[in-house]
């Protein structure tokens, strides 16, 4: 029983890790304060859920979830290209509200607030990941691949351009880089991984509804990115583990579940405040939040 519980927690850590790493790419490395990340997560989850419910194999649905989210990532750059900082944050936040409104109101596709139940467990080449342990292994593999790919990107010349845009977009432009295209790549790649995280989430919980993808779901992910430290993948990993596990002991103290939810938010807020006061760059961050 207790083992099952820990397996569940580690699956959550895996999914959060994919989300936080991909957000790190756009926020930490490219300096795009992207609050639309949860929308990409939702697009991925709905794409994968609708496809698998209609009999499409998991692997194809999984990749489609990433690719469709990525397309939205590219598109989002077009109207927001000239926005910076808070303004970009507001515009991307608006995007996540639009996606939320669509999932809620496009009932013929998403069944609105009723949600999509009975999403099949993943099955790849005849292997079905129905037990939680096997799902954990799948999640760890995918999170590992995500970590590896994002690490390779950020260490390459290509990734250095992202950091150049974060530090000074004008200079990156005068040094001969099409920063509009590069921002598109950054948001696109970031959205791709958010999309596959959505696919994993949908097939793990087997039920999704619009309330799984509100701005409240973005807060823990953004906290992880800031607390772990901007532009640090190691920090993101450490912060994901800490922030997912930290509120858990509350369950054993005997608080009712109606209190645990708000307590989680309070704990996140407190850690965020303490980090910003005493360690503004986060655990391993390279740059400060501006």
């Amino acid at each position, binding site marked *: 029983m207790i083992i099952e519980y820990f397996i569940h927690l580690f699956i959550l850590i895996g999914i959060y890790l994919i989300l936080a790493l991909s957000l790190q790419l756009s926020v930490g490395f490219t300096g795009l304060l992207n609050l639309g990340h949860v929308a990409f997560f939702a697009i991925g989850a709905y794409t994968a859920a609708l496809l698998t419910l209609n009999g499409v194999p998991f692997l194809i649905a999984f990749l489609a979830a990433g690719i469709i989210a990525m397309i939205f990532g590219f598109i989002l750059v077009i109207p927001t290209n000239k926005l910076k900082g808070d303004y970009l944050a507001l515009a991307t936040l608006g995007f996540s509200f639009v996606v939320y409104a669509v999932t809620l109101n496009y009932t013929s596709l998403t069944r609105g607030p009723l949600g999509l139940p009975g999403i099949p467990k993943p099955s790849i080449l005849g292997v079905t990941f129905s037990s939680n342990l096997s799902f954990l292994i799948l999640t760890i593999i995918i999170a590992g691949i995500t970590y590896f790919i994002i690490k390779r990107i950020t260490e390459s*010349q290509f990734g*250095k*351009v992202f*950091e*150049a845009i974060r*530090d*000074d977009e*004008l*200079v*990156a*432009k*005068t*040094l*001969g*880089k*099409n*920063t509009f295209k590069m921002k598109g790549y950054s948001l696109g790649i970031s959205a791709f991984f958010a999309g596959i995280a959505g696919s994993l989430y949908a097939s793990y919980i087997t039920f999704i509804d619009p309330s799984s993808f509100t701005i409240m779901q973005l807060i823990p992910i953004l906290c992880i990115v800031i607390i772990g430290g901007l532009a640090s993948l190691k920090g993101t990993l450490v912060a994901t583990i800490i922030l997912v596990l930290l509120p858990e002991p509350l369950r054993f103290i005997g608080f009712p579940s109606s209190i645990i939810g708000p307590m989680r938010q309070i704990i996140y807020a407190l850690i965020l405040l303490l980090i910003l006061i005493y360690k503004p760059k986060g655990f391993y961050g*390279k*740059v400060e939040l501006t």
Partner: protein
Amino acid sequence: MLKINNLHAGYDKIEILKGVNIDVKNNEIIALIGPNGAGKSTILKSIFNLCNIYSGEIIFKDKNITKLQTYELIHEGISYVPQGRQIFRELTVKENLEMGAFILDKNVMKRNIKDVYQKFPFLKEKRNEYAINLSGGQQQLLAIGRALMQNPQLLLLDEPSLGLSPKSMKEMFNKIKEINKEGVSIIIVEQNAKQSVEIADRTYILEDGKIALNGGKEILKNKKLKDIYFGGR
């Protein structure tokens, strides 16, 4: 080499340049001076398509570059060092130089880094230090070094002496002359009128978005210069 014909440019609806003509010949240093707000920096920005151009044209080596995007200009052989030492502070000196070589292949990049190290030996010594730890003068030379990574034929410098001590300013002007001797044409925008006129082959003096005077070093003795700067008339 570079010809600017009847250029009108500005920001949104505010017209800053009201018909500017400039002609840069091969291997020249051109100084652009004038009081604040005359439009010196705007000329460089309009060459690099960083402001709105209403009319007029910019010709570089017989090619009209007026409509080229900022990131395309570098392929034409023009490099721009923006005002205020815009280096990447969180990166090392070497990484900063590599940033200047996005468009080159690896081997050319290595060769160019060597060339830049030769011109600025202190950059080689400090190649693994973070750029933020350099002094102001060194940061400015790093920004110039980064622009040189692209082998430009024309280098645009926007107030390189900003915030430098007299000593590092002198060093910087000497370096600019050295770079020019190797065959790079330079347009330098400066507040420091005297020193820039002295290193320049020709000087354009701007007043209220128009060229008020142009000429060689004798321009400093021109009586009108005082009027332009101090508004006596």
